[in-house]
């Protein structure tokens, strides 16, 4: 099966000498939901950021299928712009692409609706709960209709119940949009519901 994106022999050493990844191979097929498991410090975030192009590997390559896919990224923090309401935040990737304001507003509003924030378009981040801010962050990630969605412990800062709800909502989104998702969950002993998981151990373990 063709990969949408693949890490081939990727190593990453940071400037301070830390070896984060050593010759990692990871192939992600289109339409998959992959979870990266492992304890803190084993390089999951690093791998994800390399997939996103936010970090360059020290060695090895990142290969994309032809026609580089649109990528969405969700951080552990909601990472919203506090000076604008939810709609402006969700609209960010569209604004950056130069899409006209009217259409951008529509698409952002639709994204907010899909994450269950209908009616909160004009609310500022400070008026929203942690879970709601996270939903805005996800809406922003899907507003540009990405093919590949990368999520780095997105629900870590939330309570267990909200986390469960958002996990379910995410799986629904994944199916509805035929997304490809690479997901780093909060490390736990629970069995993952992912169809496919990739585990890692830190080099020092």
């Amino acid at each position, binding site marked *: 099966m063709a990969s949408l994106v693949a890490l081939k022999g990727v190593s990453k050493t940071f400037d301070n000498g830390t070896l984060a990844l050593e010759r990692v191979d990871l192939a992600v097929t289109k339409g998959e939901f992959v979870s990266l498991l492992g304890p803190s410090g084993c390089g999951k975030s690093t791998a994800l950021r390399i997939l*996103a*192009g*936010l970090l360059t590997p020290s060695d090895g390559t990142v290969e994309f299928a032809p026609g580089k896919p649109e*990528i969405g*990224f969700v*951080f552990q*923090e909601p*990472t919203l*712009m*506090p*000076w*604008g309401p939810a709609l402006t935040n969700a609209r*960010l*990737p569209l*604004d*950056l*692409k130069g899409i006209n304001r009217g259409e951008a507003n529509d698409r952002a509003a639709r994204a907010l609706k899909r994450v269950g924030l209908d009616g909160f378009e004009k609310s*500022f*981040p*400070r008026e929203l709960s942690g879970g709601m801010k996270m939903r805005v962050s996800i809406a922003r990630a899907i507003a*540009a209709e990405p093919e590949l969605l990368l999520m780095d412990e997105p629900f870590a800062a939330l309570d267990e119940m909200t986390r469960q709800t958002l996990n379910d909502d995410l799986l629904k989104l994944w199916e509805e949009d035929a997304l490809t998702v690479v997901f780093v969950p909060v490390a736990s002993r629970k069995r993952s519901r992912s169809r496919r998981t990739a585990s890692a151990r830190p080099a020092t373990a």
Partner: protein
Amino acid sequence: MREWPKYVVPVALGALVIGLWQFLVRHYDVPVFVLPAPSDIANAFVTDFSTLMSALWTTFRIVVIAFALAVVSGVLLAVLFSQSRIIEYALYPYAVILQVTPIVAIAPLIIIWVHYENIDLALLILAWIVAFFPILANTTLGLRSADFNLIDLLKLYGASRWQILWRLQLPSTLPYLLGAMKVSGGLALIGSVVAEFAAGTGTATGLGWTITEAGNRLHIATMFAALAILAALGVTIFAVLSGLEWLLLHRWHESALKKEG
């Protein structure tokens, strides 16, 4: 707590102090050239009204222009610094030197350089020098304080340098800039007045000159009147800038939010 005590209490205290002052001066027959009573000051205010008002206008004009220049130049230079480390390393130390040099020392120099007839220009330059640095320092800090993850996110979506500056760094810097502006407004006023003192009498025509002149002629009541106007100007500048800060920040920044509950 309700809002009104914030305004009523300081005014009530002021009224009390003025009342006490008036009483003590009259009771102990203090000469007017040592400490004028509030009534003497009020008299001087009326007598010298036109002189005081034209002096106020001169100082006000200089302060506003110097402040505006300080904000524009401070922000522009800070943006330049954020884009080029080399330029920052090159110029920042000189900005610091400019800031720590007492303007009373360099005032006579500046006045000579712009030629004696252009005294207003000299005052403008001196007021600008004092007001410039807080803007530069704070805006530089603010530009660097943008959320790193947001910068990463913008880069992920292919944002150019200017888009990152415009969409992220400048809005992030707003609280820092507004805070610096409140300080700079007052500094521009002080700078302008101190510069007039250093320029000496018979040349400038603002409030600083009025205070010096009145002092020389032992018109102490007039001097106090000028001082009172100066204080009122300072308070007004601060109030206007605080209002601007509230206007721009109250919807989203912690510093301007009302506490719920």
